[in-house]
């Protein structure tokens, strides 16, 4: 078997996303025949077959992100293994390293596809990028205790930073709890590289942190007057539409680099859905023009599609407002994160029975706690609270 690992398709690219496969397991391929299209940070490129052979395994589906150097295709040679590419791959003359990839030949019956990378080689010296080596020296972190997430276990800057974080939390624990022994640095567990949804979440949250000037405001909607069978999610969607009609500036995108704001006529609400793989945000289109039954049907379709990951990309982009209905589980208020380019997000906490003052009387009413976060770079406090007031007013209608 010959395994073909994803090469660096640009100049120092760390990963690529599979766009589509042109071949399937069992196919005969000839050298230079297109096998798949991948998208890198720079380009969509066609990757051809590096050799003649029969495809035995494809690692990854369209949409998956593959790290440079990770397995992509497994071949069974159709030519005698002592010739051509196999010989080149085994030859010490074959270049490797940062510029030129390689095609290892494995005689092992066990597919080595997901063998854990190791950074140890050459008498225990750890392979690390120079900046990571210097950072580890400054932070006084032993590189041998850091697990590398780069190609062939190469230790990257992020790995050192993660190790520092682990070490720091360990130090705090040790300082606050004299009853507990200091954590064993060898017991830290392997660092799990984030993939797919969780990776996308890390990226979009970093983007939000670095760009948005977030401000949050909290209040409650008194829904004691609701008919029994009210659908909370649908009522929240309708209330958001009412809020956007009162303050269109919250149904908008903001581009900080050009200081440009775009207000939308249609309200496309992204709903945060919690899945085992991470956070997914399917989008309900044109919320303002659907009745309750249509909204419920769309919510059901999107939630089901989110859970089995069957939603097309078109259902997952271009929201103009976001709703996080986290209170289904627990929690009263939160500071939900505005994900740019959108400028606002509404969070709904757990429906609760609260003691409230009605005139001079004490009563117990059902209330929905609301948390509105907005990007204060382009939304004023006045716009935000008028929006929230309109949301509350709509929510408090009996039906």
């Amino acid at each position: 078997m010959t395994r073909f690992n994803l090469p660096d398709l640009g100049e120092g690219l760390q990963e690529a996303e599979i766009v589509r496969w042109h071949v399937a397991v069992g196919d005969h391929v000839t050298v230079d025949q297109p096998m798949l299209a991948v998208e890198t940070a720079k380009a969509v490129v066609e990757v051809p077959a590096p050799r003649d052979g029969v495809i035995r395994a494809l690692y990854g589906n369209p949409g998956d992100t593959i790290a440079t150097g990770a397995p992509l295709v497994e071949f069974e040679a159709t030519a005698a293994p002592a010739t051509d590419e196999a010989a080149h791959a085994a030859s010490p003359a074959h270049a490797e390293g940062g510029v030129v990839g390689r095609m290892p030949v494995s005689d092992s019956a066990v597919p080595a596809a997901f063998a854990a990378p190791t950074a140890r080689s050459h008498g225990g010296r750890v392979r690390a990028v120079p900046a990571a080596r210097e950072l580890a020296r400054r932070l006084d972190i032993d590189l041998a205790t850091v697990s590398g997430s780069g190609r062939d276990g190469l230790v990257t800057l992020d790995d050192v930073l993660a190790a520092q974080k682990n070490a720091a939390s360990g130090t705090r624990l040790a300082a606050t709890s004299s009853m507990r022994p200091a954590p064993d640095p060898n017991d830290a567990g392997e660092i799990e590289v984030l993939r797919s949804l969780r990776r996308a979440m890390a990226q979009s949250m970093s983007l939000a942190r670095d760009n948005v000037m977030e401000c949050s405001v909290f209040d409650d909607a008194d829904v004691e007057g609701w008919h029994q069978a009210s659908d909370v999610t649908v009522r929240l969607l309708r209330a958001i539409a009412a809020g956007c009609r009162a303050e269109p500036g919250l149904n908008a995108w903001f581009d900080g680099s050009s200081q440009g704001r775009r207000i939308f006529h249609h309200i496309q609400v992204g709903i945060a859905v919690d899945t085992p793989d991470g956070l997914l945000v399917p989008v309900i289109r044109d919320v303002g023009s659907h009745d309750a039954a249509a909204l419920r049907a769309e919510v059901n379709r999107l939630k089901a599609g989110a859970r089995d990951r069957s939603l097309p990309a078109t259902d997952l982009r271009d929201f103009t407002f976001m709703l996080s209905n986290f209170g289904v589980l627990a929690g009263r208020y939160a500071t939900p994160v505005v994900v740019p380019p959108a400028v606002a997000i509404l969070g709904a906490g757990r429906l609760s029975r609260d003691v409230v003052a009605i005139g001079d009387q004490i009563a117990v009413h059902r209330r929905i706690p609301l948390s509105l976060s907005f990007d204060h770079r382009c939304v004023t406090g006045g716009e935000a609270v008028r929006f929230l007031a309109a949301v509350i007013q709509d929510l408090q209608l009996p039906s």
Partner: protein
Amino acid sequence: MKTVAQFAIGYEQLLDAGGRPTGELPAFAQDAGELTRMYRMMVLCRMFDAKAINLQRTGQLGTYAPCTGQEATHVGVGAAMRPEDVLFPVYREYGTQLWRGVTLTEILTYWAGDETGTNFAGPRQDFPWCVPIGSQAPHAAGAAMAFRIRGEPRCAVAYIGEGGTSQGAFYEAVNLAGARRLPTVFVIVNNGWAISVPASAQTGAETFAQKGIAGGVPGMQVDGNDVIGVRAVMEAALARARAGEGPTVIEALTYRLSDHTTADDASRYRPADELAAAWQREPLPRLRAYLAAQGHWDDTREQQLRAACAAEIDAAVKGYQSRPRPAVGAMFEHLFAHPPAALAEQREQATRYPPPAH
């Protein structure tokens, strides 16, 4: 006000896009064997390009700068030069270099990040690929000055892109060559795009050829997809230089049918209709059409040529893949006669901690 000087920029095209002569062709074009050699080299470049890109896409080659679309300019320039002339290439003029004796294996070796690929076995005095934009022009002017001082009847040929002519170094070199009447030819390959910057955004001038005028250097345009035209104007410019009449600026109008490099995706910035139109003017079919019309070419010969080129490319790839692997310290060689301390320290570290064997 009276006029004290007047200038004009000529344009040469000897084969039109359909492969029809626009007038009488020069002597070399009467030689079917010579035209066939030029056609063969253009096909080899085109096929090598495809293979090199596939090698890069499969991790067997580093970043590669393709030449597809520009073969006529490259081959025309190479065929006009004499062996004793010196070439200052940028990074994609393989047709010129191959004509002068650089090998496909050397090209691949260079793009694998192994600088020994620039140690050409053939044209020993040609300069290596030089990625810094516009640097070729002053290098060539300097070499031409050396030829003048030594009394050698040689010419220096500098390549530069139309984008490169925006660099100050280009004007300085043109000025020096013009002032000293140096035996230099500056070949501006106007392929339409400086990575993602279109030629229309590069200058306010009507032509890039006129950029020589202020330096006292005559400039002209040539259809860079017409290999006969390119070779003819290049031969004339070299003859002028060798006769002591000074430098020439030649703007070859061609088109980069490929991405800028394998790290680029031109579809993100280049209009699809512009690319489609450029394919209608590309250089290979027109020379083939002319050869066929003269009875010197047919499908059988085309198939034989392509098979021969494929075999040559395969052999070059095998030679590239089986070349001796350079030692880690090799990357520090040939940079300084006496390496500075910081570099010596890096070399010491690199050789003490070699990359892991696989």
